[in-house]
C-alpha cells in the first residue's frame, strides 16, 4: 500500500496530463469540424451520454480499485432492465425499480461471494455471470421487446430538472457520494489498501472478504440503476440492452486512470473518462461515421489507455 501511495503523484500527473491533452485536442477538432458541436443543445446531449456511461462505470471503478474486475456489468444491466421493465410497463413503477435493483444486487453478491469466499479469479467468476445474466434476460423476455413506459418513469432518463438532464444530476450526486466514500470512510480507504497489497490489508485485520462482497454488490446494483436510466431514456427494453456497454464501461475506468492492478485511481477519473468517451461518440456522430465503428473506437481507446499507463509505469520503475 505504501508503494502504491508513493507512486501515486507521478502516475496521477501522467494520467491528468495525457487525458487533458486528449480532451483539448478532441474539443478543438470537433469545434473546427462542426459548427453544431459547441451549441448548448449538443453539450446537453454529450453530458447526458457521459452521465449514462458514468453510472455504469462507477461501480466497476470500485471493483477495479480492489484489483478485481466485473465483466458482468453489461449483462447485469440488461437483466435488471428486463426484470424492471416487466413490472414498470404494467404501471408498478416502484416495484419494478426495486425488482431491478434487487436483481442487480443479487448478481453482484454472487460475484462477490465467488471471488471472496470461493477464491475464483474475478474475471472468470464475472465472465460466467455475464452469460448467466444474459441467458436469464433472454429467458425472461422470450425474445420480445417491452416498450411504452409511464411518463413519470421516463423522466428518469429523458427528463430535466432545473434545465439539467436528470441522468446528469444523478451522475453528479453519485460522483460526489462515491468520492466521499472512497476518501473519507474506512471502507473507501480499505479498497485502496486491498488493491495495493491484499495480503497486508488482510493482516491488518480488515474484513476484506466482506468488503469485497460489498464492492461487487454495489457494482451490480449501480449497473441495474444504469439499466433503469437507459430504458427510461429509450422507452424500451429487450434482452440485448446493455450488451455493447461492457467495453465502454471498462474503457471509461481505464481512461480515467484507475489501474487494473488495483490500488491506484479514483471515481473522478472515471467521470472524466466517461466524458471523453461521450465526446468521442458525439464526434463520430457529428462526422457521420457509422455506429458500427463505435466498438472499434472503444476497443482502440481501451488498449491505448492501458498500454500508455502500463508502459509509463514500467519506465518509472
Amino acid at each position, binding site marked *: 500500500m505504501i508503494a502504491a501511495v508513493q507512486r501515486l503523484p507521478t502516475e496521477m500527473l501522467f494520467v491528468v496530463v495525457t487525458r487533458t491533452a486528449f480532451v483539448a485536442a478532441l474539443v478543438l477538432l470537433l469545434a473546427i469540424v462542426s459548427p453544431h458541436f459547441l451549441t448548448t443543445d449538443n453539450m446537453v446531449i454529450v453530458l447526458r451520454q457521459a452521465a449514462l456511461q458514468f453510472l455504469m462505470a462507477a461501480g466497476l471503478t470500485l471493483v477495479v480499485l480492489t484489483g478485481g474486475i466485473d465483466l458482468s456489468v453489461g449483462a447485469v444491466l440488461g437483466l435488471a432492465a428486463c426484470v424492471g421493465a416487466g413490472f414498470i410497463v404494467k404501471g408498478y413503477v416502484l416495484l419494478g425499480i426495486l425488482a431491478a435493483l434487487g436483481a442487480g444486487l443479487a448478481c453482484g453478491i454472487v460475484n462477490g461471494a465467488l471471488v471472496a469466499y470461493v477464491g475464483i479469479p474475478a474475471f472468470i467468476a464475472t465472465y460466467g455471470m455475464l452469460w448467466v445474466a444474459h441467458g436469464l434476460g433472454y429467458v425472461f423476455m422470450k425474445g420480445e421487446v417491452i416498450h411504452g413506459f409511464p411518463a413519470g418513469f421516463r423522466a428518469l432518463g429523458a427528463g430535466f430538472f432545473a434545465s439539467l438532464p436528470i441522468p446528469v444530476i444523478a451522475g453528479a450526486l453519485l460522483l460526489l457520494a462515491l468520492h466521499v466514500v472512497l476518501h473519507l470512510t474506512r471502507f473507501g480507504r480499505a479498497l485502496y489498501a486491498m488493491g495495493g497489497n491484499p495480503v497486508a490489508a488482510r493482516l491488518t485485520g480488515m474484513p476484506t472478504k466482506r468488503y469485497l462482497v460489498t464492492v461487487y454488490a454495489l457494482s451490480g446494483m449501480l449497473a441495474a440503476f444504469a439499466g433503469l436510466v437507459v430504458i427510461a431514456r429509450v422507452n424500451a427494453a429487450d434482452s440485448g440492452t446493455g450488451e455493447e456497454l461492457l467495453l465502454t464501461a471498462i474503457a471509461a475506468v481505464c481512461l480515467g486512470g484507475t489501474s487494473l492492478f488495483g490500488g491506484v485511481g479514483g471515481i473522478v477519473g472515471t467521470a472524466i473518462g466517461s466524458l471523453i468517451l461521450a465526446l468521442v461518440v458525439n464526434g463520430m456522430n457529428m462526422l457521420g461515421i457509422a455506429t458500427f465503428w463505435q466498438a472499434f473506437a472503444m476497443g482502440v481507446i481501451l488498449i491505448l489507455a*492501458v498500454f500508455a499507463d502500463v508502459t509509463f509505469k514500467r519506465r518509472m520503475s
Partner: protein
Amino acid sequence: MNAAARALRMPLAISLELPGAAYLLALLAAAFALASPEFSSPRNLGNIALQSAALIIVSLGMTLVILTEGIDLSLGAVLGLCGVVMGLMLASHGSLPTALGAALAIGIIAGCCNGALVAYAGMPPFIVTLGVYGIAQSLAMVLTQGNSVTGLPPAVRWFNEGVWLGVPVPILAMAAVFAFTWLLLYRTRFGRYVFAIGGNRRALELAGVPVRAWLVAVYAYAGLLAAIASFIMTARMNAAHPTIAIGLEFDAIAAVILGGTSFEKGYGGIWGTLVGALAVAVLRNGLNLIGLGTEWQVAVVGLVIVSAVALDALRNRS
C-alpha cells in the same frame, strides 16, 4: 517444471488424470438418453460430432492460451471477421485459396496483436483480448453493414458436407488439428515452454528463453485455429455472418475448464479439452432436444462453468 514433466507422460495417463469432464459427459449423456429417445439415435450423435468440430478446434487454441495463464476473449469475434472476409472475397468471385489464405492471415494477425500486447507491453490478457474483440467485431459489422454474406460458391460447402475416406470433413479437420496440436504440445520445445510459462515464467526467463516471442506464438496459434474453424462454420451456414461465433469463446473456455485445465500453474492438457468440448456440445444438444432453447442453454452453460471453477477452487484449497 513439475507441470511440464506431467505433461510429457503418455496420453492415456493424462486422460486418466482428468476424470471430471468424463464423468460429466457420461452423466449428461445418460440423462439426455433417458429424457429423450431421439438423443441416442445415430443421426443425432452424428450431429453432435459435426457440431462440436468447430468448438473443439477453437478450444484447442484456447487451451494453449490458458495454460500460459492467459485468456482469449476475442476468438469468437475474430472467427466472425475471418468468415466475413472469406465470404466477401468469394462472393466477389475471388479464388478459394486466396480467400482461405486471407482468413488465415487475419486470424494470425489478430493473434499476434493479442500476443504482442500481452507479452511485450505487459497488459492483462483479458483487457487486451476484450479490446481486440471490440475491434474485430466492429470491423466485421462495418464490412457487411451487419448483414449476412450470401451467394458463396458451392465449393465452400465441402468444408461441412464433404466426405473423405468415409469420414466427414469437419471431423477430419478436427482430428487433424488435434493431432497437430498434440504433437506441438507434447513433442516439441514449443509445447514444453507453453507448460513452463504457466508453471514458472520467471525461471524460464532467467534460463534465457525468449518467453515473449513464444507467448506471441501461442496467441497467434489460437487465432489461426479460429480462422480454420471459420471455414467449417461458414460452410455449415452456407453464408458468412459477422456475429456467427459471438459467445463461442465462452463455450471454448467452458470446455477448457471442464477439461481440467487450470488458470494457474500450467496444469492441464488437450485430452481434457476434447472431453470438455464434447460435454458442452452434448449439453447444448440435449437441452435443445428437451425443448430448452438457446436462451436457457446460455444460462445453463454459464452455471456449469461457474460451478466447475468453484469446485476446482474449493478442491485446490482443501
